[in-house]
């Protein structure tokens, strides 16, 4: 049973993207990091801006604001570093956010059939109904990729 199917009070992290607020299950959140240098190299995944280094780990930066609000973030105040995927394929992504994040406990309502795939559920907080995000649907690479995929690579290859 996933955390959303349990339908009870859960810890969530509220994040701000421009004028709107969204939520992410707290158990998926690693940390909130100050903006750091983004390393860019040639690639063809348009949703990925580059990578940052956190504790020796390379973390891809994925700006989800455009998909959710229709606009790129004008100002990146922090990176919310979160996990996505399941089992062995869990990996980290850095989500640029435009304001402080807040840890709350709230009653969650699971997403309905008519909701977009990126909606994992809903919560009500401070008189506002807020989407709880499904990062697997929002970030690239969760589905099998198109043509010319290389053979499976182990999570960490040592030279």
């Amino acid at each position, binding site marked *: 049973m996933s955390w959303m199917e349990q339908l009870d009070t859960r810890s969530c992290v509220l994040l701000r993207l421009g004028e709107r607020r969204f939520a992410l299950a707290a158990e998926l959140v690693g940390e909130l990091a100050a903006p750091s240098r983004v390393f860019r190299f040639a690639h063809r995944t348009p949703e990925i801006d580059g990578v940052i280094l956190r504790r020796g780990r390379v973390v891809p930066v994925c700006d989800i604001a455009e998909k959710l609000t229709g606009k790129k973030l004008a100002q990146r105040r922090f990176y919310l570093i979160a996990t996505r995927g399941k089992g062995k394929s869990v990996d980290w992504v850095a989500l640029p956010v435009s304001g402080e994040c807040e840890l709350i406990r709230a009653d969650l309502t699971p997403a309905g059939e008519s909701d977009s795939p990126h909606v994992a559920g809903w919560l009500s907080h401070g008189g506002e109904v807020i989407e709880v995000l499904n990062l697997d649907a929002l970030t690239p690479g969760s589905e099998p990729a198109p043509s010319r995929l290389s053979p499976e690579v182990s999570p960490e*290859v040592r030279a």
Partner: protein
Amino acid sequence: MQLPAPHKSHPVRAEQIILFRASSQVFAVSSSSVQEVRSVDSLAGAAVEINEPSIPKVRHAIRRGDRNQYVVSAAMHFDLRPSPAALIFMLRKPRVALLVDGIEKMTSMTRLQALPGAFCYEERVWYRGLTVLDQNVIPVVSPAGFLTPAEISLLDAVTGSQALSEVTGAANSGLSL
């Protein structure tokens, strides 16, 4: 949830790498996969021109023994702005010679991190992974990612037919004499 640090590294064998530039971006390639480094000038006259519209990154082939080695423009392969190439890396496998702007330095890496799963297009074929050197993230190229076996077969066919037409042309000109 605490962001875990990557696994502690055990003592590992360092891998020698060459850092090279292509259109102002830096990449790494394993030294062991480079057989020879030549200047572009040294190949003048030795390279055969190729015009295969479906593979625009290959414009020349070099005859090595009884096989062709295909010259791939690194800038075009990585969709970068064209830049004046100065060096050619003759790779051991596959039959690729890589056209690059220059060598940044030779160094070694002790750790190669897999490309994060969020990268999900051709870059998964282009790179073996990423390495961190002097607080910089450098993509480590995969020699096998420059041309697919199908592309090599196509180029073999193109150069084969070119050679045949040259022979035929020479024979015809001989007959006309």
